[in-house]
């Protein structure tokens, strides 16, 4: 039996799916309004006006197969931005845009629209003046019976990436995040079996268009804090990687997430694998976040089981022998916490965390002597030195 692809090629079917999933395509991207007409007529149609994590306007256009108007639409959008970029802050107050944030155009297509995307890519490469044009392609696939889609970014500033026929880049392994965030049922486009679809992000290549924006958007102080995080990751293990992905930096160890840092409105928002969030404002915030990264790293290295051997006084043998790897617990930062599946995962994570009191720091508190213990030691002192006056 043939299954209909989840992303049907008509704009009417594709847009409802995409508008719900902008945040999965680029972290922090949210739709402000549908259907912007920027030049009075069919050439001026933009599918949606969005706001990115940095507070900048983003004109979102869909690329569908055989759309002869795509190119003129993109050109119109670019001209519109050139004229009105800063005016949008006032003209669209519901966008809550940041003054000075650089607007851009994001074109989203599927594999069926490869020819259109390729044409746009050539245009982007030729027309260096085209402000902030970005292209990405969604590729649907099935995983464990559910529909997913991979997002691959098409380089408009360098050589072609995966726009001609078969993908050039291997789809990245599904991240814990994408597996843990099934697509909302309303957005599924596969009514035949009612299964939900999620997405898999393909990390942008280092040279991709907006990857440098993360660093650019940080002021001096934040930039220093981010460098501290980088140093910390560097120290931890050579296998710890920082994956660059738009305004997000995912910190992974052997492909497993340890945490992530997102640049939002010029600030740094860090999320540990446990889901705990920190706004990084000072070195001590970085230190707290760093401690959680290390803790997660230690857990993933399969070492928590070692610690869970309760051996008050003679734990050497028991503890030394156990190095069996605890199964890695998928984490679910920025997953949609409202679905039961995600909650189960979160519960699993919190179970694998030491209880709040079970840390080396909490152990220090427990070391406080009780009056009875103190008395017993002092008594022994007096017994050991009977000549000393009792005190």
């Amino acid at each position, binding site marked *: 039996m043939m299954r209909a692809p989840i992303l049907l090629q008509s704009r009417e079917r594709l847009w409802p799916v995409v508008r719900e999933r902008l945040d999965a395509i680029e972290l922090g991207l949210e739709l402000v309004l549908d259907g912007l007409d920027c030049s009075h007529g069919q050439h001026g149609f933009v599918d949606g006006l969005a706001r990115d994590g940095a507070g900048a306007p983003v004109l979102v256009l869909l690329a569908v197969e055989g759309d002869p108007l795509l190119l003129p639409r993109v050109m119109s959008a670019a001209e519109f931005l050139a004229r009105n970029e800063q005016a949008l802050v006032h003209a669209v107050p519901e966008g809550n845009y940041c003054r000075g944030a650089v607007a851009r155009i994001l074109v989203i297509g599927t594999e069926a629209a490869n020819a259109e995307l390729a044409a746009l890519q050539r245009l982007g490469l030729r027309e260096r003046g085209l402000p902030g044009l970005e292209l990405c392609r969604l590729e649907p696939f099935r995983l464990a019976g559910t529909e997913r889609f991979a997002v691959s970014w098409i380089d408009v500033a360098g050589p072609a990436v995966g726009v001609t026929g078969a993908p050039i880049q291997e789809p990245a392994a599904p991240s814990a995040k994408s597996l843990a965030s099934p697509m909302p049922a309303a957005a599924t486009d596969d009514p035949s079996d009612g299964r939900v679809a999620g997405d898999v992000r393909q990390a942008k290549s280092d040279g991709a268009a907006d990857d440098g924006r993360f660093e650019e958007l940080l002021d001096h102080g934040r930039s220093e804090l981010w460098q501290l995080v980088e*140093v*910390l990751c*560097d*120290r*931890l*293990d050579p296998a710890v990687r920082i994956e660059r992905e738009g305004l997000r930096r995912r910190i992974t160890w052997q492909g497993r997430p340890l945490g992530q840092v997102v640049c939002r409105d010029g600030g740094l928002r860090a999320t540990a694998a446990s889901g705990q969030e920190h706004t990084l404002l000072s070195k001590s915030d970085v*230190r707290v976040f*760093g*401690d959680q*990264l*290390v*803790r997660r*790293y*230690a*857990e993933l*290295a399969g*070492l*928590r089981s*070692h*610690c*869970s*051997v*309760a*051996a*008050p*006084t*003679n*734990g*050497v043998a028991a*503890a*030394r*022998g*156990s*190095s*069996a790897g605890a199964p890695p617990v998928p984490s679910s930062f920025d997953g949609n916490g409202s679905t039961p599946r995600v909650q189960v995962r979160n519960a699993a994570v919190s179970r694998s965390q*030491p209880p709040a009191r*079970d*840390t*080396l*720091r909490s*152990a*220090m508190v*427990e*070391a*406080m*002597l*009780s009056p*009875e*213990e*103190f008395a*017993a*030691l*002092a008594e*022994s*002192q007096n*017994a*050991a*030195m009977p000549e000393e006056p009792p005190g």
Partner: protein
Amino acid sequence: MPHREAAVVAFASGKGGTGKSFLTTSLAIALHRRGRRVVVVDCDFGLANAHLLFGVKPVYTMRNVLDGGVTTEQSLTATPHGPMLLAGGSGIASLCELDAGHMALVARSMQWLARSFDVVLIDSPAGLAPQALLMALAATHVVVVTNPEIAALTDAYALIKCLSRQPGCPELHLAVNRVLEPGLGLLTYERLAAVSKQFSGCSLHYVGEIAEDPAVTHRRLGQEPLLVSHPTCRTSLAIQRMLATMQQQMAGLEPIVCTGGGIDQRMTAQLARW
């Protein structure tokens, strides 16, 4: 893969100045004389002084390792009396405040050391800071060094109580230093062991006492260690006896065969609880 790893003994104390560095360096020299490849790791990051007791001027310290400037091997200083030393970064305030990332690096250094030497002696940081607990919990044996005074005793007990409650806690041993009259060490041990048993349910092993010796206190910088200059004096003999007792209690201080993870994994496991 089973592999061989050094016995790792951490010398710890609840409070500073009980004689950890003196004991660590003296026992290291004694062990070297028994033909063992020994390394002393000065982890008393705030008040590192093992290099002074060995009479060496290290080019590199733990700080250089943590900065990534040198490898663990390059950071070692040979001492004139045999043992190798990984010096602590003395007087470097930032090192007092090590974070978990630093400790992950220390763990990798420790792994290299444990695989390259027969015995690793750790001069632990004093007190109950997380890094002190971490070093002690990663060792194969812990020697708590105390003095007979009540202040040292209560701090030693706090450390013992705290360590004994941690998962994966190694065997705990007690050395009593600076005793004013013979036998006071044993008495101190008996009381501390009784309180530890009664209130914390843990056992302590007694490794011996060292008398208060003005020759130790009044040694000048650059003078040879007592064990070298006066190998048969009362204190040197007590050190030798202590080493013999430790060897009895600690499986000869022979390297152990690790079937699972070694010291780096033990440290990393504890790091998960940072």
